[in-house]
């Protein structure tokens, strides 16, 4: 107010009134100044929301709005209690989360829709030339090589202009219609990660694209956050305890997980556990922030963690299984692991042909015994020590799909009680020498020969030598029990896998390894399993991550810690626990309207689409077993072709023909129904008239054409092999320096180097990040404080809402509204271009948790095309389904819940139920405004309500239906777990009031009943529900043919890869003037950042202020001084994949021979030009590349069957070697 201060001036001249004693006085001045402080904490409103994608902490925050502006956020403190004697969840949230309010108004915020100017000009011209026919206009652009090149080569080069939202939607729709008509809907893709963090936003695009028939690309495997060991051991993607359960543990190993940094709001449970006496062990190559919480630190050499774990396994087996019998461990191992199961020993030849030598092959099954039973190939066998006879116990996967109600872990066989025999030693028929592959760093694989006890089984005129998995494990790990062979004599014998052996590899003292192993097991023995390993990306982002994890997880399996509160593994990387899973997947993949959706595994897609396979210079021989046969030395891409043709992994684009055309052709040739159409296609495949697209990926007809990216920084932060993305997928400037086709695949047709495969890249984003900069179209997205959504996490059992604190700023829209808008324009335009619904043939791999997971017995590879056989879809190749698509109805379907769920049922993880009552209730609650007879989900809140109403975690009646279905399959009583909550349902408004704890559901394996902390596999252990694996138990032994080719039947040690940073002849001009002494050659590690919100948002002003304000690379002080690099010098990091430019941070914390570049430092801030490429320096992913592991592609074999984000090769990036040198000149080239 004008003069408000001046009016106070007279107060200065008035006298104060002293009291009688004269010590105090009453001043004549007013107290209005205090208003400022009062107003500081007055707000227009305070709204509950959270942060969605990227950080998976899922913390409830209060967002403050003042004068219409978001001012700040504070932690919510109203979490329901964890009960007495437990620490509480509140407050949750870290300083990085508290900096997000800044981001809403960040300079990088995308405020308006943008199109690259060149493309917009071409579009406008084409529109006028084609009389406004938009599809023709798009055709005229993308079919003209000159025009194509014009806008594709401009990607990433700036030049965005604002455009009208509606007009942009029309361009997008035209490109979609053109692509569907020309190539088929399977050339359209969408990428978005981590649905748990904002389920409705994820579902927005995935629902739209699934309705079109496009492919949704998975992220968990692509981010290398998927621990492939989890499907291998448990048949489960990832299932881990909530963080409060750490407090229940009395021995915790933090292994490659930096809790205070990456799990900031949860780390307190670990600290509090210390106060009650829990011992904390830290395993980490560098002195990270979590190490200081450790009672002891094991500084293991980066990437060699598996060796340490195997030595610890050695100690535990020796001291707790062989020298001494621990009843708890033995009972656990006999009931819940595959250790007692029998494995056939096959004769094998290696070097000396006359020497008798055996190798473990398949599990012995009921069919080997000649038993007449359903699915005999899928029922595994063990010895019963009560009768001394081989028996088929309940619970193996054969029982799961035979509907006998015997799929359970009761120790019985045909109604009789059994006692599994763990070791055959003492009851053996023979002692046999068995070969175990062994791998050392920098050397070819070799073989260890060790004796073990075997029994002879005779059935059907055949004779088998068999042994137990336990005996195999003991022999493999090197515990002789008096048997002969290459066994170490004691812990100090440096033969695999003793504590002395690991010392040479990991650098951890043998006594320390022994001590920790002993303590870990002793604690589990006393507490019955309360020993825990919290593990993370530090050990998971490696090529052989499954072997590292299998070695470490052996520790929790052998100590009976898994499935016990306070025990087991706790892996928190890219958490993925969509607690309301059934409802979410229904909405997200439009399973309520049509099935199946095209769900593509990410790593395979990008490996092929970005042509990184062209740069392989070695075959799989470098990692295969010395005993390998035919499948041990293929080109890495060949395995992916095998996986596609055998129905193991998804393969979109599907064929070298439009799938809609293909159905039309079949119908023109007289095919009447689905069966006949599929037959027609199978015949064409057999006659080689039709090819899988992956067999010829560089032929333009097989290119992916349109890609939508939302909630992600695909091209940059998660673009492993970033420069290959730029070169091949986008066709723009790049820094790729490697030579192509140094080794050639045999199953792929080789073509000229393709550039710019994508016709259109659409990014929906609120940041102008690396992906937005390279997109053709950028649509402004609402931030997490501007929309409705829901979020869950592994780390706590609550479900959190997002609420808009303000309306989406500028022209931004929520993801749900954006895709609804596109679908509306698309449907209107489709009416002109599609006269009637079309039929689309969808290929689906043989899926996990479906009867198809028992399609290929014994895991034997049968190449039907070699024998010129007609493939059998659903058996030895992809399953094929016909889906009818009415493109003019996409909008109506998008925004209303379809009736298919009440006709076919719905569910997850093999549990199916009919949600009839829930569907009817939703009609009344949500209305039928969009389409009469169907619940309206036109808003994000309504979509969230539908998701929660259809999920067991949030709706007690659905949980009851699921438990009933599982009771039927297992023959075990389960409904009591959910009975007390059967009438409860969590609604969106409930969440807004207070965080709500989810309910016990069969979709997950914890038991929350009675306020217990969630721990993975409690249901399996306490209720004898099998794991979804071959034996139904937790697996040590894996018997697929391809696994054996790589020698990984048992947990073994696989050293990190040592790829050459540059090959001879690559970058000759660099090699020439490279002063060899001044160039570092180091391993490239990209851990999570301290100064950013999880993996992105390091361009936040506050974060930049905290640390160096731009891209950095951390180097060891001695390494740096060798290369003449001082702190804060500019350095160039390079190899055949590309170049990154950054400042050096010199620290003794970094181990020698390693460079750290914290994850996701985008190239938006402070990046000078590279002297090598003469272009602006790249990002941390410029020097990485994808390396696929063949064993991750196995399919149609029990737990080795495809599931979205469950299985597939992982986009690992730590097996990377780079050169680093000081930059002599720093050119900013500012114009």
């Amino acid at each position: 107010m004008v003069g408000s201060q001046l009016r106070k001036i007279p107060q200065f001249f008035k006298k104060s009134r002293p009291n009688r004693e004269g010590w105090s006085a009453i001043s004549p001045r007013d107290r209005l100044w205090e208003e400022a402080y009062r107003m500081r904490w007055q707000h227009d409103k305070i709204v509950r929301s959270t942060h969605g994608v990227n950080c998976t902490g899922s913390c409830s925050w209060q967002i403050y709005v003042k004068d219409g502006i978001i001012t700040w956020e504070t932690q919510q403190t109203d979490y329901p209690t964890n009960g007495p004697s437990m620490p509480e969840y509140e407050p949750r949230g870290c300083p990085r989360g508290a900096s997000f309010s800044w981001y809403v108004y960040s300079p990088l915020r995308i405020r308006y829709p943008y199109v690259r100017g060149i493309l917009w000009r071409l579009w406008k011209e084409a529109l006028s030339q084609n009389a406004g026919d938009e599809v023709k206009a798009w055709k005229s652009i993308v079919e003209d090589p000159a025009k194509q090149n014009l806008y594709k080569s401009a990607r990433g080069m700036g030049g965005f202009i604002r455009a009208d939202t509606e007009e942009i939607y029309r361009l997008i729709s035209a490109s979609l219609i053109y692509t569907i008509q020309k190539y088929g809907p399977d050339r359209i893709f969408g990428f978005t990660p981590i649905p748990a963090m904002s389920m409705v936003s994820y579902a927005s695009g995935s629902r739209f694209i699934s309705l079109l028939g496009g492919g949704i690309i998975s992220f968990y495997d692509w981010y290398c956050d998927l621990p492939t060991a989890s499907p291998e051991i448990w048949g489960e993607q990832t299932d881990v305890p909530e963080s409060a359960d750490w407090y229940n543990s009395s021995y915790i190993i933090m292994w490659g997980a930096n809790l205070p940094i990456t799990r900031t709001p949860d780390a307190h449970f670990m600290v509090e556990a210390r106060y009650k006496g829990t011992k904390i062990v830290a395993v980490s190559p560098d002195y990270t922030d979590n190490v200081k919480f450790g009672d002891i630190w094991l500084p293991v050499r980066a990437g060699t963690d598996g060796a340490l774990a195997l030595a610890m396994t050695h100690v535990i087996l020796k001291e707790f299984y062989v020298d001494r019998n621990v009843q708890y461990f033995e009972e656990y191992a006999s009931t819940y692991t595959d250790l007692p199961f029998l494995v056939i020993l096959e004769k094998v030849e290696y070097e000396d042909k006359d020497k008798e030598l055996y190798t473990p092959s398949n599990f012995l099954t009921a069919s080997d015994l000649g038993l007449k039973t359903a699915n005999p190939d899928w029922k595994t066998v063990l010895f019963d020590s009560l009768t001394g006879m081989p028996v088929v116990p309940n619970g193996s996967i054969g029982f799961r799909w035979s509907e006998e109600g015997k799929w359970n872990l009761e120790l019985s066989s045909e109604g009789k009680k059994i006692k599994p025999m763990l070791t055959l030693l003492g009851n053996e028929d023979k002692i046999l020498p068995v070969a175990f592959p062994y791998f050392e760093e920098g050397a070819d694989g070799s073989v260890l020969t060790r004796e073990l006890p075997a029994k002879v089984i005779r059935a059907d005129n055949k004779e088998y030598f068999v042994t137990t998995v336990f005996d195999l494990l003991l022999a493999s790990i090197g515990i002789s029990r008096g048997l002969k062979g290459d066994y170490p004599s004691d812990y100090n014998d440096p033969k695999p896998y003793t504590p002395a052996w690991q010392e040479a590899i990991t650098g951890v003292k043998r006594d320390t390894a022994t001590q920790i192993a002993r303590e870990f097991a002793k604690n589990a023995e006393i507490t019955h399993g309360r020993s825990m390993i919290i593990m993370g990306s530090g050990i998971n982002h490696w090529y052989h991550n499954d072997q590292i994890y299998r070695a470490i997880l052996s520790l929790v399996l052998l100590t009976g810690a898994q499935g016990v509160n306070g025990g087991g593994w706790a892996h928190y990387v890219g958490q993925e626990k969509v607690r309301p899973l059934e409802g979410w997947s229904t909405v997200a993949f439009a399973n309520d309207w049509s099935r199946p959706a095209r769900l593509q595994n990410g790593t395979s897609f990008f490996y092929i689409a970005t042509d990184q396979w062209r740069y392989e210079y070695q075959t799989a021989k470098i990692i295969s077993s010395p005993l390998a046969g035919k499948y041990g030395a293929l080109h890495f891409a060949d395995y992916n072709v095998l996986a596609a043709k055998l129905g193991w992994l998804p393969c979109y684009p599907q064929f070298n023909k439009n799938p809609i055309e293909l159905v039309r052709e079949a119908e023109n040739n007289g095919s009447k129904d689905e069966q006949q159409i599929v037959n027609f296609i199978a015949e064409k495949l057999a006659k080689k008239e039709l090819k899988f697209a992956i067999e010829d990926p560089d032929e333009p007809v097989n290119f992916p054409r349109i890609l939508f990216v939302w909630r992600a920084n695909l091209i940059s932060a998660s673009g492993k092999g970033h420069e290959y993305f730029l070169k091949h997928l986008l066709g723009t400037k790049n820094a790729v320096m490697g030579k192509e086709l140094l080794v050639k695949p045999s199953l792929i047709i080789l073509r000229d180097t393709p550039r710019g495969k994508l016709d259109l890249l659409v990014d929906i984003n609120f940041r102008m990040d690396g992906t937005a900069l390279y997109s053709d179209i950028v649509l402004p997205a609402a931030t997490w404080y501007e929309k409705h959504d829901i979020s869950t996490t592994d780390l706590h059992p609550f479900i959190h809402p997002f609420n808009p604190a303000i309306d989406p700023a500028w022209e931004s829209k929520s993801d749900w509204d954006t895709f609804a808008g596109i679908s509306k324009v698309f449907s209107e335009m489709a009416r002109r271009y599609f006269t009637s619904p079309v039929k689309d043939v969808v290929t689906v791999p043989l899926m996990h948790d479906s009867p198809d997971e028992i399609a290929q017995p014994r895991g034997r590879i049968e190449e039907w095309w070699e024998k010129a056989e007609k493939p059998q879809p659903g058996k030895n190749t992809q399953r094929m389904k016909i889906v009818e698509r009415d493109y003019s109805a996409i909008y109506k379907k998008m925004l209303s819940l379809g009736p298919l769920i009440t006709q076919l049922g719905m569910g997850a993880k093999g549990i199916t139920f009919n949600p009839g009552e829930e569907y009817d209730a939703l009609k009344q609650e949500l209305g039928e405004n969009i389409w009469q007879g169907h619940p309206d989900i036109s808003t994000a809140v309504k979509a969230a309500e539908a998701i929660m109403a259809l999920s067991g975690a949030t709706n007690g009646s659905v949980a009851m239906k699921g438990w009933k279905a599982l009771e039927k399959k297992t023959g075990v009583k389960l409904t009591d777990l959910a009975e007390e909550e059967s009438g409860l349902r969590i609604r969106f408004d409930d969440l807004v009031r207070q965080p709500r704890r989810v309910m016990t559901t069969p979709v997950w394996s914890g038991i929350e009943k009675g306020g217990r902390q969630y721990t993975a596999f409690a249901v399996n252990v306490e209720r004898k529900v099998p794991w979804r694996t071959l034996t139904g138990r937790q697996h040590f032994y894996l018997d697929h043919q391809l696994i054996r080719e790589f020698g990984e039947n048992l947990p073994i040690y696989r050293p990190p890869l040592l790829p050459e940073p540059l090959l001879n002849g690559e970058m000759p001009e660099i090699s020439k003037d490279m002063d060899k002494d001044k160039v570092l050659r180091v391993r490239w590690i990209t851990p999570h950042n301290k100064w950013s919100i999880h993996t992105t948002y390091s361009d936040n002003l506050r974060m930049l202020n905290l640390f160096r304000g731009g891209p950095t690379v951390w180097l060891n002080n001695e390494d740096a001084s060798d290369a003449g690099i001082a702190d804060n010098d500019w350095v160039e990091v390079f190899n055949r994949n590309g170049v990154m430019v950054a400042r050096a941070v010199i620290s003794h914390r970094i181990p020698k021979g390693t460079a750290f570049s914290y994850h996701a430092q985008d190239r938006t801030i402070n990046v000078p030009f590279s002297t090598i490429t003469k272009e602006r320096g790249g990002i941390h992913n410029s020097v990485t590349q994808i390396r696929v592991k063949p064993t991750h592609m196995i399919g149609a074999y029990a737990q080795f069957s495809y599931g979205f984000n469950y299985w597939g090769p992982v986009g690992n990036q730590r097996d990377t070697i780079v050169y680093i040198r000081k930059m002599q000149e720093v050119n900013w080239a500012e114009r």
Partner: protein
Amino acid sequence: MVAEVELFLWVIYPYVALTVFIVGLILRYDKDPWGWTSKSSQILERRLLMWGSIMFHWGFIFVFIGHIMGLLIPVSFYKSMGVSFSSYHIIAFYGGALAGVISVLGLFVLLARRLLNGKVKATSGIDDYFTLALLLFVMLSGLLNTLGYSLLIGEYDYRSTIGVYIRSILTFRPDIPIIATAPLTYQLHTLLGLLFFAALPFTRLVHIFSLPLPYLWRRNIVYRSISRSS
């Protein structure tokens, strides 16, 4: 032409400067109560600040007192008090030079600190440099008179020239000739001094007016009444 320049320099400019000074102060006080601050950087650096700040401030206070003595109080007052011309000038010369030199040295320390200390430099804005530079120029031009003019050329009786002029301005009867004939260095100092007053409301120097003097005599405990109209 000369007359117009003189009119501008010695009449228009002084009144504009003083108007800006007074109106500016009032507006600043009214509009920017939270920005009324000395903008202390003591939290970032203490050691140099202690030397620079104490030297500058005490020097400045004595220089200021000297200006009141010399410019606002007429010579007749001193005469009536029995202070002779020569004894006044000895006091003014030694006292003024000492205070001026200490103050300027303090300013140099403050400027060096601002330029060389990374933390202080990083938090400095253009206004900080402007304030320091302005003070430096004013003080140096003053020293030029006190030390330079007095030592090199001789005593100049500014009390009966500049002082008269200043009083003529303050009494709205501007006396142009008396200032127009003053030595160039005295004119320069006068002009810079006026600039100092004009700039003051827009800088941290406003803290001059927030000298917490009432602490010297206020009661030990001071209450304020909740009623807003007291």
